């Protein structure tokens, strides 16, 4: 009977095109608005590395001003650490499987072709970065520990940059000129865009593109490549040292630090290690505040840094209310539509259709309207996301409808339509046919 009901549903929609279009539009608008905000929220709050997000921990050490208010949670502690602490941790024997210190910078890339030099983002880090975050490689591989230790002039570049400089060819072994230095390419990363970009969520860059050049932190410091992200200091650097040395040894925080840990027991041991490290530093006159060491896995880290803002949540709630208004409007329109065909319903009842059969037939029609509403809502959501993309910087990774969201949109629209249609469908199936047949 389903195919028969579908045929009747199409016929019914053709019979009342304006009313049907209004219903599809009402649902489409509601779904479109909701899916626009929800897609952004969904991608913002998604797990960027689901297979190991509970094994990757961001490190926070509270080296801040002792006169500041007491710390109550990880949200009150700086999200970055000092260069020197990073160096101490990365060189220590710890319970972590891997550790990586890192910071963001910028360089000028000078192409070999006639193309003019251009600015490019850089991540200065350790070889562990790539295996820790399961970065996919198109060509080559990460540099090795030895190259970190040797301050080697090597680089891993992104696919986009490889396409730009080498037309997509395997560039491993070739050189890339950054500023006035040459770096030998050891690997090319395939498309890789964790969303949010969890490893560096500071300074509003949580939805930025991943960097196109990765190079050893030791080499970056030698140049020096200055950090392009947030740098926060609570006391001035030592004036007796050179400017660079003073900055590197200062209490300024500008390095991100991550550790890969397999089990909760290892995490507890790693936390103990950090606490002991801080105690050692306290003995040296640093870390004057109470012991506030935090390690947060990826989901916790996104929460600590409030990657999904309250504004996003409010928007999702508001758009859901708008969807409810649209659904309520659809209830009225469906009621008008179904009561308008009460004569046909009465006839079918006379011909032997039970109330259940009438209910099913009209529910299929409601479902069809829901699917059409979902499709139009998907189109409107696509337009809405394009609008978001044009209005907000850094949202380009949050404005695509993936298959999950497409299915959700259509499913939600169908469910909304069915919920909206339950009362009208029930009403029409309960109509007494006797009185209606005479008046046909």
């Amino acid at each position, binding site marked *: 009977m389903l195919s028969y009901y579908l045929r009747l549903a199409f*016929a019914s929609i053709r019979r009342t095109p304006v009313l049907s279009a209004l219903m599809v539009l009402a649902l489409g608008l509601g779904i479109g608005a909701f899916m626009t905000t929800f897609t952004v929220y969904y991608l913002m709050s998604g797990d960027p590395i689901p297979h190991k997000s509970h094994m990757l921990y961001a490190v926070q050490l509270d080296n801040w001003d002792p006169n500041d208010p007491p710390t109550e949670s990880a949200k009150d502690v700086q999200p970055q650490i000092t260069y020197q602490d990073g160096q101490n941790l990365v060189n220590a024997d710890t319970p972590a499987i891997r550790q990586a210190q890192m910071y963001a910078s910028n360089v000028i890339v000078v192409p070999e072709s006639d193309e003019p030099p251009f600015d490019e983002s850089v991540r200065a880090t350790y070889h562990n970065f790539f295996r820790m975050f399961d970065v996919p490689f198109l060509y080559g591989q990460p540099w090795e520990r030895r190259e970190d230790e040797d301050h080697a002039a090597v680089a891993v570049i992104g696919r986009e940059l490889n396409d730009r400089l080498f037309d997509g060819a395997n560039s491993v072994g070739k050189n890339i000129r950054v500023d006035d230095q040459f770096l030998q390419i050891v690997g090319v990363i395939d498309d890789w865009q964790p969303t949010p970009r969890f490893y560096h969520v500071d300074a509003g860059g949580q939805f930025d593109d991943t960097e196109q050049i990765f190079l050893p932190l030791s080499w970056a410091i030698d140049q020096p490549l200055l950090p392009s992200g947030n740098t926060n200091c609570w006391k001035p650097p030592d004036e007796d040292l050179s400017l660079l040395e003073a900055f590197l040894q200062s209490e300024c925080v500008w390095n991100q630090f991550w550790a890969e840990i397999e089990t909760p027991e290892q995490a507890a041991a790693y936390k103990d290690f950090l606490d002991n490290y801080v105690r050692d530093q306290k003995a040296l006159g640093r870390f004057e505040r109470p012991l506030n060491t935090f390690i947060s896995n990826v989901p916790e880290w996104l929460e600590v840094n409030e990657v999904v803002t309250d504004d996003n949540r409010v928007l999702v709630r508001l758009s859901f209310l708008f969807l409810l208004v649209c659904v309520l409007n659809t209830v009225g329109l469906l009621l008008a539509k179904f009561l308008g065909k009460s004569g046909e319903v009465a006839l079918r009842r*006379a011909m*032997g*259709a039970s109330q259940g059969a009438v209910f099913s037939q009209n529910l299929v029609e409601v479902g069809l309207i829901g699917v059409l509403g979902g499709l139009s809502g998907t189109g409107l959501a696509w337009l809405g996301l394009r609008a978001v993309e044009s209005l907000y910087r850094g949202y380009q990774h949050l404005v695509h409808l993936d298959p999950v969201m497409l299915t959700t949109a259509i499913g939600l629209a169908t469910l909304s339509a069915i919920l909206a249609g339950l009362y009208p469908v029930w009403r029409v199936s309960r109509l*007494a046919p006797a009185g209606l*047949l*005479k008046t046909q």
Partner: protein
Amino acid sequence: MLKMKNISKVYRTELVETHALRELDLHVDEGEFIAVTGPSGSGKTTFLNIAGLLESPSSGIYELDGEDVSRLNDRQRSRIRNEKVGFIFQSFNLIPDLNLADNVDVPLRYRGWSAVQRRRAVGDMLDLVGLGSRQNYLPSQLSGGQQQRVAIARALAGKPRFLLADEPTGNLDSEMAEIVMKLLESINAEGTTIVMVTHDPDLAHRASRNIHILDGRATDSATPLSPNVTPLPERGVAHA
């Protein structure tokens, strides 16, 4: 075939109580052609609705084919209506955006027949009413008489044994009415029991028996048979 005992139907609102039928007794035998007459508001249509299981009586017993159908649930009533009862209405009640074949197909869809069975039955019935070549026409492309013939084909498609006709010629001119009446008479001659509500005394006289309903009560009237109607061996008696 159809037996009603003390059937009453009362419509109640907060302010008014209307007795549409009052202790109506009626017996219709297999193969009869009954004409039901009476003034407007006398209860004819209510009687037809109850006979066709579109409404339940407020009290009394209604037996169809020996089965008490007065207290069945909707699903059971719908099944019996689909299998045993055919309806013909004054205003044809064809679905305007379905073609003739699909209109005739409507009751068969609820019967659970296969597509082949349904196609054959639809073709046979449209052939019977002389519209077999117009299966794909829409109702709006037909005259009133042709539409009523389609409605008759629809009523007969499921091979019901009991046909209820409510003013079947009420919207037709005399020529078309005659065609439809002859069709009903031939259907009755094939063995289908017909109960027809009509205002037209001439049509009523062509039935094998007349039931007159007045103020919700039925009276039997000995009606002279029309020459072209075959007398039935037995006749039912209606009691006031």
